[in-house]
């Protein structure tokens, strides 16, 4: 069964005065209806990975390797990726409200995206747009249709942005930090909405986030990125309960939980994420790793399969993932 999305050896370079490599060889696969989360902190390259797949890199960015969607290569030729946006892959940005064009009405923007589906008439597009606004639980969709983005509240704009991403019935939804800019108590609504939409529209989900709580709630599988590489990948259930890579373990420990008995210091990972473009002779995480040994300084550990998961570490915490 070929995966719906296949990323092979993806490398993303940025030129200019601060030239660096943001993504340094990533392999991923996403099956239909599957939900994969990519977790990482600043400098991990997770957002650039997403943008590279759909051809939305900045002008000085170059992607090489392979990204195949339904068997078709997206990185070459230059117009392959734009064709797939809308009806193939839907994209929700971090500042969702900001991704709406300010001087055009909501309805127009939705209809425009809807029409990227082949064989749809203008009337159909309008109907589809209205239906999608209802699906994202926007109150009173008919009257919102004629409004401009600034007339809506932040939360409503977020929903419209979601509708925009989905109105052409894509097969995968890409979401870049969908919960970061919103309140903690509203996050639940948005997450449930995304989960329901994926379920209802039969879509796969590729989600980028730094929040492990979001991963736990939404994803089936998770890939952890550090300094441009995937360091661990596996099912959410096993990875979050028994992480194999020291970085994953560190991240999990660092998630602040309510103190059950008095105060205590917060767990942390010493040092800081490396500057994009730093070169490492061995493992990238070695400077901050509490388990580092001799090979770690000189040999870059490859991403190896281990049970149902993959880990890039010379001294993984568990050998063989529990299923």
């Amino acid at each position, binding site marked *: 069964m070929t995966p719906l999305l296949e990323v092979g050896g993806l490398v993303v370079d940025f030129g200019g005065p601060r030239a660096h490599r943001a993504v340094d060889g990533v392999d991923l696969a996403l099956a239909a209806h599957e939900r994969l989360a990519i977790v990482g902190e600043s400098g991990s390259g997770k957002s650039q990975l997403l943008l590279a797949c759909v051809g939305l890199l900045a002008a000085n960015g170059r992607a090489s390797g392979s990204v195949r969607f339904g068997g078709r290569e997206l990185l070459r030729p230059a117009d392959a990726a734009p064709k797939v946006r809308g009806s193939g892959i839907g994209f929700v940005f971090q500042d969702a409200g900001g991704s709406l064009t300010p001087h055009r009405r909501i309805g127009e923007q939705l209809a425009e995206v809807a029409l990227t589906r082949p064989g749809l008439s203008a009337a159909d597009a309008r109907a589809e747009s209205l239906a999608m606004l209802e699906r994202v639980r926007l109150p009173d969709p008919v009257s919102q249709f004629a409004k401009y983005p600034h007339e809506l509240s932040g939360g409503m704009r977020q929903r419209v942005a979601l509708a925009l991403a989905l109105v052409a019935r894509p097969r995968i939804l890409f979401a870049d930090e969908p919960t970061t800019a919103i309140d903690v108590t509203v996050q639940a609504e948005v997450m449930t909405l995304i989960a329901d939409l994926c379920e209802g529209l039969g879509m796969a989900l590729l989600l980028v986030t730094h929040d492990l709580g979001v991963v736990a709630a939404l994803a089936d599988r998770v890939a952890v990125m550090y300094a441009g590489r995937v360091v661990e990948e596996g099912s959410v259930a096993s990875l979050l309960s028994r992480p194999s890579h020291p970085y994953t373990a560190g991240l999990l420990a660092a998630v*602040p939980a309510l103190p059950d008995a008095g105060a205590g210091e917060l767990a942390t990972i010493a040092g800081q994420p490396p500057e994009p473009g730093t070169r490492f002779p061995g493992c990238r995480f070695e400077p901050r790793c509490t388990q580092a040994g001799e090979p770690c300084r000189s040999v870059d550990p490859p991403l190896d399969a281990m049970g149902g998961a993959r880990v890039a570490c010379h001294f993984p915490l568990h050998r063989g993932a529990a299923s």
Partner: protein
Amino acid sequence: MSGGLRIRDMAVTYRSGAGAAPVEAVQGVSFALADGEILGLVGESGCGKSTIARAILGLVPLARGTVEWQGRRIDTLPKERFRALRKELQLVFQDPNACLDPRMTIAESVAEPLRALMPEFDTGARAARARERLAEVGLTDALADRYPHQLSGGQLQRAVIARALAVDPRLVVCDEPLSALDVSIQGQIANLIGRIRRERGLACLFISHNLAIVARLSERVLVMYRGRIVESAPRDTLVASPLHPYTRLLVDSVPEADPLHARRMLERRRRASARRRDLGSPGCPFVARCPFAVDRCRTLLPPLRDFSRGHLVACHRADEWRDGLPAER
């Protein structure tokens, strides 16, 4: 109490645009912070917590109420007299990338408050003191001569803390100091703040939307919702048995890395925030989202009452659940 900070019935209004109705960002907030105490203030965006920080530091005027420091009223002081106070009251900002002048080196930024607030130091003494503070927060000399864009988020926030400490203040208000940082770095900075506070015996008002962090660092916690304090309790009591439904919502919203638990919590939170009807009713501000709301809640604003030893709640039904909030229906 003569020492420390005391806020009485503070109200602050904003005018969001020309001709728009004024918005009451803070409505009748009162609390006290003793010398050397660390008090946590938790709430979501727009609840007014950052406004309180600015009002204390004299950056926004009060519409009503008083701010007292060491027993003296400070909110009505003329600018010049207030400036002398800035030596004792300092602020750590949320976004370290934004609150450091991009055209000044780290060392220059840290030394800057000394110019106005400690004029007895000359340039050399200021520079030396700046480096001392930078070392205290764990930044090396080499980093001191760099520009903000050359440092990482965690390093920048350390510099911001060093700047706040430059004048040896007695009270530091930390306004969301961890929100702009990576998760693995948040712990470092939180621990740093905790350690410095202990070592220097500083009073600290720690403001955040993240209840877990606030609870870890503070001895007492205030919960704010829409401009009002809805609950105030010692840390352990608040976490173990919150009495206000909003506090419990916040407790439930603490991110869980356990998938099973996470999905259950998700459903509960979703139900809570999905209930949203009329805003602007005269009663409790939380009534639209509260699973326990009754008629009285819609019409009457619940006052912040002393429930038991140091535990204050603003809820009409708090007496009903002395043993903790019941499960939602």
